[in-house]
C-alpha cells in the first residue's frame, strides 16, 4: 500500500513538473543538435587533413600505454619471485653438503597398526630350529649334505 501511494505521489509530482522537465530536455536537445553539428564539421575537417576523426583522445592513449606497461611488468615480478625461491632452495642444499649436515628430513609418517577382523597368521608351526641367518643356513645345508652322503 505504501509503495502504491509512493508511486501515486511521484506520479503527481512528475505531472506537475512535466513542463519543467520538457523544457530542460528541449534545451538539452537544442544544445545536443549544436554539439552534433560542431562535431560533424570538425570530423570532416580532421578527416580531410589526414587524421582520425573520432579516435581516442590523447588522455585515453596515454592511459592505455601506462596500463599496458603495468600489465607487462606484473608477470615479470611473479617470475622473479619464483626464481628467488628456487635459488634459495639450491643455496640451502649446497650449504648442507658443504657443512656435512644432513638436510632437515621430514618426520617419518607414523602409520597406525591396522586392526582388522582377519585372522592373524599362526607362526607356531614353524620349525624352531630354522636358520635365521645365511651363515646358519649354509651350515645347515652342509650338515644335510653330510647326512645324505651316508
Amino acid at each position, binding site marked *: 500500500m505504501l509503495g*502504491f501511494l*509512493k*508511486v*501515486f*505521489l*511521484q*506520479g*503527481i509530482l*512528475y*505531472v506537475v513538473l512535466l513542463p519543467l522537465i520538457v523544457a*530542460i*530536455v528541449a534545451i*538539452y*536537445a537544442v544544445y*545536443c543538435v549544436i*554539439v*552534433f553539428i560542431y*562535431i*560533424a564539421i570538425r*570530423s570532416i575537417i580532421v578527416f580531410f587533413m589526414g587524421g582520425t576523426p*573520432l579516435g581516442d*583522445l590523447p*588522455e*585515453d592513449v*596515454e*592511459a*592505455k600505454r*601506462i*596500463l599496458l606497461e603495468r600489465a607487462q611488468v606484473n608477470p615479470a615480478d611473479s617470475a622473479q619471485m619464483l626464481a628467488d625461491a628456487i635459488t634459495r632452495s639450491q643455496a640451502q642444499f649446497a650449504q648442507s653438503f658443504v657443512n656435512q649436515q644432513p638436510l632437515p628430513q621430514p618426520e617419518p609418517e607414523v602409520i597406525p597398526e591396522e586392526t582388522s577382523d582377519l585372522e592373524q597368521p599362526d607362526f607356531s608351526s614353524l620349525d624352531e630350529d630354522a636358520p635365521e641367518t645365511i651363515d646358519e643356513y649354509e651350515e645347515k645345508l652342509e650338515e644335510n649334505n653330510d647326512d645324505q652322503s651316508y
Partner: protein
Amino acid sequence: MISLIKLTENDKRLIIVLLLVLILLFVIVGYIGLLVRKIMKFQASKADDMLHDVVEAGVITEESKLLRFGIRKNWRVFFKSAWVPFLIMLGAVTLLLLYCLFSKNWSYNIWDYEKQGFNTLFYIYDWNVFFSASPEGFTITWPKLISSPHLSGEAWVSYIFVPAMTIGGTWFVVDVQAYIARAFRIYKLSHTAFRKTMENVTPPSQPIKPE
C-alpha cells in the same frame, strides 16, 4: 442567493469514474517515471567506463581536468550514437522541402485527413461535441465520424515523413536522455573521484611512538 448545482445519480457515477481514471493516470505516470529513472541509471554507468582508465592510470589527477575530459568524451559518445537518427530526420526534412520546392506548394499539411496528410490512415472523429456542461447537468455525446481510413496518392510524402520523424525523433530524444544521464554522472564523479574518505581507514594496531 447561491444556486447549487444539482447532481443526478449519473453525474455522481461519472465523477467517480473520472476520479478513478485520474488516479490511474497518476499511477501510470509514476511507474513511467520510475522506469525512466532506472534507464537513466543504466545509461549513466557508461560514464564510469569512460573515466575509469584515465583515473586508474593517473593521467588526470584534478577535478576540473576530469570534468572537461568527461564532457569532451561525452560529446563523442553522443555523436557516435546519434548520427543515425539525425540522418533519418535530416532525410525526412529534405524530402519534404524538395517536394514543396518542386510542387510549389508551401501550404502542404502533413496532418490533413482528407487528401495530403498522415491522418488519412486513421478514423477521425469530431470531438467538439463530446462533453458539455450546463446548469441542468453534464452530457456526453459520442463524437461524429468525419473520415474513415483511406490511401491517398497525394499524401505519399506524409506517409514517409511522419514515421521517419517519429522514429528518428524518438531515437534522438533517447540519445539526448542518455547524454543528460552521463553528464550528471560525470559531474558527480569529477567531484568525488579524488576526494578522500575516512570510511575504510583502519588505524594501526600499535600507536606510532614519536621520536
